[in-house]
C-alpha cells in the first residue's frame, strides 16, 4: 500500500501560483458579451452626446438624432460654405464652395470605408481620411511618428484645431458613434472645391497652437487661490 501523497510547503511554491493563474484565467469570462455590449453602448452614447454638444449636425445635417438627414451631409445648396472674398461680397473672387460631407457609415458616399482610427486622426490632426494611412500617429511634425510628410487637411471651416483638445476617449467615442451608432444613409455630397490645402502653410504650430497644450499654469493663467 502506498503512502497517500500529502501537500507540503514545498508543493505550495508551485500550487499557489498555478492556482492564481487558473483563478485569473477563470475570471476572464466574467467580462461577458453582455458586459462588453454594455460598455460599447456607453461609448456610443458618449459619442452621441459629444456630437450633439459640438453641434456636428449644425453643418452635417439634422436638428436632432430623430430628424431626417441626421449627419447625412449637405442636401440643399444653402448648406454650402463660401470660402474667400465671396463670403462677404456676392460675386467676389476667388470663391470656393465647401460642402458638409456625409458622416454616416455608408460605404459609397459616407465614412463606411474609413476606419475609426482614420476618423480619430481626422479630428485630432485635421487629416483627411482618404489621404491618410490607417495608422496610429504619435507626432505632429510632418514626416515623424507616422504623421504624413505631405499632410492633407480637412477643408475649413471644419474647426478641428479646437477639437484636437478632446481626450482620446472622447474622440474614439465620436468615431465609434459615427461608424457603429448611426445607420448608413446614401447621400452623395458634391466634392468641396477648396481651398487647395496641401501647399497651404496654415496648419503649423505657430498658427494653430500646440498639441498637447502647454502645461497649466502659463504666464496668462494662475493657480486658484
Amino acid at each position, binding site marked *: 500500500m502506498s503512502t497517500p501523497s500529502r501537500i507540503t510547503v514545498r508543493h505550495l511554491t508551485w500550487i499557489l501560483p498555478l492556482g492564481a493563474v487558473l483563478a485569473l484565467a477563470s475570471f476572464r469570462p466574467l467580462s461577458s458579451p453582455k458586459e462588453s455590449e454594455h460598455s460599447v453602448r456607453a461609448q456610443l452614447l458618449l459619442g452621441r452626446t459629444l456630437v450633439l454638444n459640438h453641434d456636428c449636425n*449644425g*453643418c452635417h445635417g439634422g436638428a436632432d438624432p430623430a430628424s431626417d438627414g441626421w449627419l447625412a451631409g449637405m442636401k440643399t445648396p444653402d448648406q454650402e*460654405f*463660401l*470660402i*474667400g*472674398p465671396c*463670403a*462677404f461680397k456676392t460675386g467676389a473672387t*476667388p470663391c*470656393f464652395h465647401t460642402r458638409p460631407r456625409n458622416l454616416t457609415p455608408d*460605404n*459609397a*458616399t459616407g465614412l463606411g*470605408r*474609413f*476606419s475609426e482610427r*482614420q476618423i480619430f486622426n481626422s479630428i485630432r490632426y485635421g487629416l*483627411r*481620411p*482618404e*489621404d*491618410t*494611412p*490607417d495608422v496610429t500617429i504619435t507626432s505632429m511634425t510632418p514626416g515623424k511618428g507616422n504623421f504624413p510628410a*505631405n499632410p*492633407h487637411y480637412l477643408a*475649413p*471651416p471644419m*474647426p478641428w484645431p479646437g477639437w484636437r483638445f478632446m481626450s482620446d476617449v472622447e474622440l474614439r467615442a465620436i468615431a465609434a458613434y459615427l461608424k457603429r451608432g448611426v445607420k448608413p444613409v446614401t447621400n*452623395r455630397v458634391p*466634392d*468641396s*472645391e*477648396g*481651398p*487647395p*490645402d*496641401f*501647399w*497651404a502653410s*496654415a496648419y503649423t504650430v505657430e498658427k494653430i497652437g500646440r498639441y498637447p497644450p502647454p502645461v497649466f499654469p502659463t504666464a496668462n493663467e494662475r493657480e486658484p487661490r
Partner: protein
Amino acid sequence: MWSQHRVVRNRVTLTLRAVLSSSAVLGAFAFPVHRPGPGTSAAALEDTLVTPPVLKNISTVPGTIEVNLAAAPARLALLPGHATDAYAYNGTVPGPTLEVHEGDHVIIHFRNELPEATTIHWHGLHIPADMDGSPLRPIGAGKQYDYKFTIPRGTAGTYWYHPHPDARTGYQIAMGLYGAIIVRDANDPLPASLPEKLLILSDNRFLPDGSPDIADPHSPQGQIDRENGREGNVLLVNGQVMPVIGIRSGEVQRWRVINVSAARIYRLAIPGQTLLHVGDDGGLFERPRELNEILLANSERVELLVRGSGPPGSQTTLQTLPYDRYDPHTRPANWEVSHDLLSLRYSDAPPVPPPALPAVMRIVTALDTSRVTARRVIVLSQELINGKTMDMNRVDVRSRLGATEIWEIDNVVTMDHPFHLHGFQFQILDRDGVPEPYRSWKDVVNVRKHQTVRVVVRFDDFPGKWMFHCHILDHEDHGMMGILEVRPPPVRRRM
C-alpha cells in the same frame, strides 16, 4: 452659428495666400502643347510615323524566341530635335518591340547598364511570378538576368514592358524606358491583309534643354505631380510629335494603341469618323464595337480598326478630347483643351472596296461566378489601398491556386485611379452596378472618381507574390500598391 462665420473670416487671409501661390503654380500648365508648324509637304503620303524595331531573334530553334535586351544611358532626343541624356532599351526610345507567338518559349538576356537598379515588368503577360519583374526582384546596376517564360495559348494581344523598381518606375519610364510586346495568334481572326500600326502614346514635360523636367518633390510642381500624377505637355506617338499616317479611302487599318503615359488618360477620337473597337488589354473580343470615342487609361491597350471613310485627298487627326480625371483642387487650368496626336491623311488614289470583316472574332468565355471562392473589397484612396501604403514584407491578400474571386474595387476619392493586377487577366462584371456591356480580358481598369468596379479573376496557375496597384506612376511610386500571394493548394499529409 456665429462662431462658424468667425472661422470663415479667419480663413480668408490664408485662402488668398494659398490661391496666389497656387496660381503661380498653375501657370506652369499654361505652356502650349508643342505642335509642328503647318504641314509643308501636303503631297507626301507616306507615313512619317516611325515604328520601333523588332527585337532580333537569335535562336534557331522553332518556337523559341531568344533576344538580347539592355537598359543603358543614352544620348538621344526624347523631345524631337533636342538631344539629351536619357535611358533607352537597346539605344532606342521607344524600346524595340518584342514580337512573339502564342506558345513561344521566350528567353530575354537582360543587362542592366543603368547607374541604378531596375526590373522589367512584362505588363499583362500571364507568366511565373519570379519572371514578372516586380519590385521584389530588383536587378542591380551592372547586373544581368535571364527572363524566361512561355507565352500561354489564347493570349494573343498587345502588351508592353517597362521598369518596375521600388519607387523609381515613374522616373525610369520618363527617362525613356518603355517598349511594346505583340503576341500573335497563328489563326488570327482578322484578315492578315489589314495594314497594322503600332501607336505607343506617351507624354512628357521638358526643360528648355530638352531633358525631362522632373520636379523636386517638395516644390509646388512636385506636389501637383504627386497628386495628379506627372502629366506632360508634349504628347508623343512612338516618341514623335504629330506624325502622319497615310490611308487610302476604303482601306481598313488595324491599330494597336498603348498608353504608356505616367498619368494622362486619353479620350481618343477621329473627328468625322467612328472607331471599330475590337480588342482590349488581353486581346480581341467577340464582336466589334462601333464608337465615336474611346477612353484609354494608363497602361491600357486597345485594338482599333480605322476605316478609311473619308474622301481621297482629305485629312483628319487622331485627337485626345478633354477628360476630367482630376481632383477639383489640382485640376489643371487648361484641362478642357483637346490635343492632336497624329495626322491621318488620305491619298489621292481612288477608293478601294472595303475588306470583309468577321462578325465574330474571338469568344471570351465568362469566368464562372457561381464558383466564387472569395469576395474582396479593395478600397482606393489617395496614395493608399485599404488605408495602407505598400510594404514589401506584408501580404495584403492571400489566395490559393484554383480560386475564383470577385474583387470590388472601390474608389472613395475625387480623382480616377487606374487599377492594375499583375500576372492575371480579369473580366469586368459591372461599374457602379451597371453590367459591363461586353466581355473582354483586362489587366487594368480605370476606377473613376467615387466609382465601384467589380471584376472576376481566376488564379489558375503560377503561385507566388503579385503586385496590384494604381498605374498612375507617381501614386505607385509613393506606395499605392499591395501584394497578392497565391499559394499552392494545401498538401494532404499521409498520417
